[in-house]
């Protein structure tokens, strides 16, 4: 037998199929199908962790996803390791390494346990009150110490070697939960021919049938029926059954996120299989059959290892064949826990007593208990427990006083009743309603096309659940237009109807006491903490939650929320629904980052856009920089060159000889139609109707508020055809901006817009020898200076392929931008390069491009402007038409703040020390000796070493900058203050002789 507490003949696991794992280095044997929790319990291990704040010894509380205590670290190897795994859902595989968390130096001897003795100082709100002073200590002392002491597990430091999959799916009916209700609903829906997805978080379907052995469906034991029903469903073509799959989030319009754990239970997984798979399901209808979660009883020292939920003990016995103790007591306010006593008794476990806080338990369970010879103490409560690493005795009193006695036990099972799992319903934005009779929050007003069935809907009784679920399954399927099949009928029987339940503190943990009666195990929140929060003025449940941290741990208060609410309501003297329920948020249970990002990592995180010449650039030693998604050649270092040396050489060469530059990433939009010029008149500040075919113009585009949005050169190819260029980063939004106005404000204009960014490869050839480089390659275009002056465009051929040849410049040199169809880009580039290299020209990258344009005073929208800059601020008043009566931004430009004095304006700066290059973003002041905080006049937007000028150059946005020419201003830096002189923005060839040469 694997484990001393495994009882022969009990449970559904196969004794021969064993697996070995380690817990804190010690080896244990488990059975295939065990969870870590069931395997540890089988081996008599109850102590599995230390609590968050007080470091109290803690054991396994539940047998499901609601587990607050048993968080463990699970590892296959150093990289495949995950902290904070709930031991109650993690299946054991052979060779797994499990480690306990939040203890030092060891689980059984933990220094942090001193916090427990200090606990009077650790009341709710403690952190907020204590670590306020001195302020500086927070970052350096308090936070690191608290983080280490109160931490959950530690994240692995190695990269996650596993991969994760993503899948979109649609269906007619999605059924969440495969217990009796979910299976019934799925059977009914599937019978109509509807496309059904049924998902359940556990390895096997059945839900509560895992523990409830007194149920039969269609004459079979419930669990057996469930497996057969699932097999039948899985065999149907219109049904997908997903096990180990948690519906973690219910979003808009019946969009539900599922996570399927594919390999976490496998000893030697196929490495091709994903570890987990995200399912993004859009369902026409959703049926929620998510069941209910048992609550624990709230009483003094209710957190010792060995104290667990009654249904959990039934699961460990009936499914895993494990007895959680040898002498077990039950403490309950609710009939269902009695069945745990019956099951354990039948399996030969001694039942010390059933302590029922109610004076009148249900008759049926009471009689059954008597027939088993079990002592029942109605109207009694457990008020204290003893035992260090495991409960050893409980103190029982008669409600109202007297009858105090101590009972020796090694396990205590508690049940305060059942909380319907309305998490997903609430996430769907449905409104819950409080049922005062049962003390439950139940689905009230639905917001989406879904229905709740069974325990999550507060439905009691097996047959009632089955009938509700069958009806819902059929109804929802028919609503999606499926009306085939025969009606499904099922007959279920169970031994006992369950009544009872309570929320809040039990006898002995009331307002007059100071005992540690835990409601939230994971965050160490006691009943008295809720009361303290109310006394300190927190009256909203949302405030109480944040002050006490109740329900804010990774279990999100699945056990604690209702208890906290009931205690708050009692303290406030208000009814529970008047205090309100906190909002349920996705995810229902923790989801790994791997699942959420799935394929979007590494190279697949974001697509890389590469120009047609990328391979050549790479082969010629270019380093690349990211510009949006584009990879742009940054500079081309030769052997031994630093970046600065390479850029200086490229800058010199372009002005002395020529340079070739890949400008393919520039955004390009083809604007076509009889009203194309009129449309551009509206989109840009400039006038376009006056531009003749064959000519180009630099255009400024504004937003309606008057600020610069984009810029670029526009060439008129024909009367009805413009070739618009945009900034590299601005291309998509400019296209969107144009489409918006064309479709919604100016739909009367006959214009067609086409994004051509990736259709053209663009090769800029700039410098004194630019014409000589391209001349022999060009056909059908007279490229003489007279026939083809600066700012012209012609169509013709280059290297035998069609080209739109622009005479334009972003360097200040005479130059061309050769546009060819993208597929010819590299071939034409190579032909141009062959000429260029022979003539002593260089290839240059974006860094040199930046320096050269700055030498010439050309701005970059988005670097020298920031969304608050007008064309006047940028010194581009000449580009704003004074004749036009309308363009986008015309009114915005007249706004009072945009025309007033003292706006920040773009100017040039020269450092007094010519060798010193300013830092982009550095602030500018008039008086460096003024006290702090200084009055800041603006900031540096661009700054470079200009090899051609022999000194550094910079642009800056400065208050009233245009009237400050010649002034000395200061740039305070950490190590010194830099004196600068305000200049105009053109540092080279002010008269433009080179440009037009």
């Amino acid at each position, binding site marked *: 037998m694997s484990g001393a507490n495994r009882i022969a003949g009990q449970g559904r696991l196969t004794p021969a199929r064993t697996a070995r794992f380690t817990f804190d280095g010690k080896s244990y044997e488990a059975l295939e199908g065990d969870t870590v929790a069931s395997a540890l319990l089988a081996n008599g291990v109850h102590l599995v962790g230390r609590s968050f704040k007080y470091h109290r010894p803690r054991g396994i509380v539940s047998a499901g996803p609601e587990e607050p205590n048993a968080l463990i670290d699970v590892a296959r190897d150093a990289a495949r390791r995950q902290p904070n795994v709930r031991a109650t859902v993690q299946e054991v595989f052979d060779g797994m390494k499990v480690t306990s968390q939040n203890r030092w130096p060891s689980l059984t001897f933990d220094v942090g346990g001193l916090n427990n003795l200090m606990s009077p100082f650790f009341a709710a709100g403690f952190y907020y009150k204590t670590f306020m002073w001195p302020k500086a200590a927070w970052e350096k002392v308090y936070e690191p110490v608290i983080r280490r002491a109160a931490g959950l597990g530690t994240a692995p430091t190695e990269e996650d070697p596993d991969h994760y999959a993503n899948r979109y799916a649609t269906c007619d009916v999605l059924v969440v939960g495969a217990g009796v209700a979910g299976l019934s609903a799925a059977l009914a829906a599937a019978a109509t021919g509807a496309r059904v997805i049924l998902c359940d978080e556990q390895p096997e379907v059945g839900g509560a049938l895992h523990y409830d052995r007194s149920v039969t469906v269609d004459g079979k034991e419930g669990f057996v029926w469930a497996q057969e029903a699932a097999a039948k469903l899985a065999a149907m073509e219109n049904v997908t059954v997903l096990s180990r799959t948690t519906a973690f989030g219910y*979003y808009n319009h019946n*969009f539900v996120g599922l996570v399927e754990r594919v390999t976490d239970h496998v000893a030697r997984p196929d490495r091709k299989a994903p570890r987990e798979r995200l399912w993004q399901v*859009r369902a026409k209808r959703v049926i929620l059959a998510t069941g209910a979660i048992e609550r624990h009883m709230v009483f003094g020292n209710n957190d010792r290892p060995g104290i667990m939920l009654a249904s959990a003990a039934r699961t460990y016995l009936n499914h895993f064949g494990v007895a959680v103790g040898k002498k077990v007591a039950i403490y309950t306010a609710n009939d269902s826990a009695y069945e745990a006593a019956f099951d354990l008794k039948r399996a030969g476990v001694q039942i010390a007593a059933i302590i029922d806080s109610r004076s009148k338990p249900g008759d049926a369970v009471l009689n059954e208990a008597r027939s088993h010879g079990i002592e029942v103490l109605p109207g009694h409560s457990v008020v204290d427990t003893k035992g260090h690493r495991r409960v050893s005795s409980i103190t029982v009193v008669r409600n109202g006083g007297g009858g105090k006695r101590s009972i020796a036990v090694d396990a205590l099972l508690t049940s305060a009743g059942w909380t319907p799992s309305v998490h997903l319903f609430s996430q769907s934005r449905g409104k819950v309603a409080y049922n005062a009779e049962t003390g439950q929050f139940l689905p009230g007003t639905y917001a989406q096309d879904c229905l709740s069935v069974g325990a999550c809907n507060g439905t009691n009784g097996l047959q009632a659940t089955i009938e509700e679920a069958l009806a819902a399954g059929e109804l929802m399927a028919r609503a999606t237009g499926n009306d085939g099949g025969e009606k499904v009928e099922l007959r279920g029987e169970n031994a006992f109807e369950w009544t009872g339940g309570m929320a809040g503190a039990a006898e002995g943990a009331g307002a007059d006491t100071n005992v540690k009666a835990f409601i939230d195990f994971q965050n160490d929140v006691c009943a008295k903490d809720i009361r303290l929060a109310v006394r300190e003025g927190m009256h*909203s449940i949302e*405030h109480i939650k944040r002050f006490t941290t109740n329900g804010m741990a990774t279990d999100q208060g699945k056990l604690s929320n209702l208890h906290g609410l009931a205690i708050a309501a009692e303290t406030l003297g208000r009814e529970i629904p008047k205090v309100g329920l906190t909002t349920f948020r996705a995810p229902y249970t923790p989801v790994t980052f791997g699942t959420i990002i799935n394929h979007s990592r590494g190279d697949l995180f974001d697509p890389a856009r590469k120009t047609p010449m990328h391979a050549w650039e790479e082969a010629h030693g270019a380093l690349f920089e990211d510009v949006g998604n584009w990879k742009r050649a940054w500079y081309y270092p030769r052997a031994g060159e630093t970046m600065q040396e390479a850029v200086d050489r490229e800058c010199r060469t372009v002005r002395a000889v020529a340079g070739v530059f890949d400008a393919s990433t520039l955004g390009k939009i083809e604007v076509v139609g009889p009203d194309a010029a009129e449309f551009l008149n509206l989109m840009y500040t400039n006038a376009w109707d006056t531009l003749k075919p064959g000519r180009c113009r630099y255009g400024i585009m504004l937003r309606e508020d008057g600020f610069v949005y984009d810029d670029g050169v526009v060439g008129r190819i024909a009367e009805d055809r413009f070739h618009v260029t945009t900034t590299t980063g601005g291309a998509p939004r400019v296209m969107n901006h144009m489409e918006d106005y064309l479709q919604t*404000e100016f739909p009367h204009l006959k214009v067609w817009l086409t994004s051509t960014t990736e259709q053209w490869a663009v090769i800029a050839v700039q410098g004194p020898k630019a014409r000589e480089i391209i001349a022999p390659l060009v056909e059908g275009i007279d490229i003489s200076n007279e026939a083809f002056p600066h700012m012209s465009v012609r169509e013709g051929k280059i290297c035998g392929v069609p080209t739109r040849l622009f005479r334009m410049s972003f360097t200040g040199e005479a130059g061309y931008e050769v546009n060819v169809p993208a597929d010819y880009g590299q071939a034409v580039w190579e032909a141009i390069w062959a000429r260029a290299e022979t003539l002593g020209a260089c290839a240059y990258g974006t860094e040199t491009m930046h320096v050269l344009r700055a030498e010439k005073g050309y701005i970059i929208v988005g670097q020298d402007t920031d969304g608050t800059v007008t064309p006047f601020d940028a010194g581009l008043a000449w580009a704003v038409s004074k004749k036009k*009566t309308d363009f986008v931004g015309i*009114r*915005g430009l007249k706004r*009072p703040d945009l025309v007033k004095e003292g706006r920040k304006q773009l100017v040039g700066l020269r450092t007094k020390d010519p060798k010193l290059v300013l830092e982009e973003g550095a602030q500018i002041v008039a008086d460096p000796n003024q006290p702090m905080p200084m009055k800041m006049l603006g900031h540096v937007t661009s700054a470079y070493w200009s090899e051609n000028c022999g000194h550094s150059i910079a642009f800056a946005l400065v208050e009233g900058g245009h009237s400050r020419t010649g002034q000395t201003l200061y740039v305070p830096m950490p190590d010194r203050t830099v004196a600068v002189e305000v200049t105009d923005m053109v540092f080279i060839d002010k008269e433009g002789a080179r440009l037009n040469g």
Partner: protein
Amino acid sequence: MLLIYCPYCEEERSELEFRHGGDAHIARPTNIADITDEEFAEFFFLRDNPKGLIFERWRHIHGCGRFFNAARDTVSDKFYASYKAGEPKPDLSAVHPATEKTVETYEATEGTAK
């Protein structure tokens, strides 16, 4: 993730294919150059931010590329109608109750918890 009906494609598609475009039925004044500062502020800056029914623009940017309008409840995210750009606001008084035109503040929602 929303499911949005494109009136041009005539089918529901995932929100991934769309881009939101702000309030609908705010016409750019044809004499925009001449309007007052107040009129410009009203046109460009001020929006109702209703709790409830809103008429808004969407663009089926990764589909047909067209702009269109839709009526959505900002609380439930339910769409009541979507219709082509230029078409008049549909009358939804029969299917949708009146909307509060107040901007919701923390104080207003927290009630006694202030």
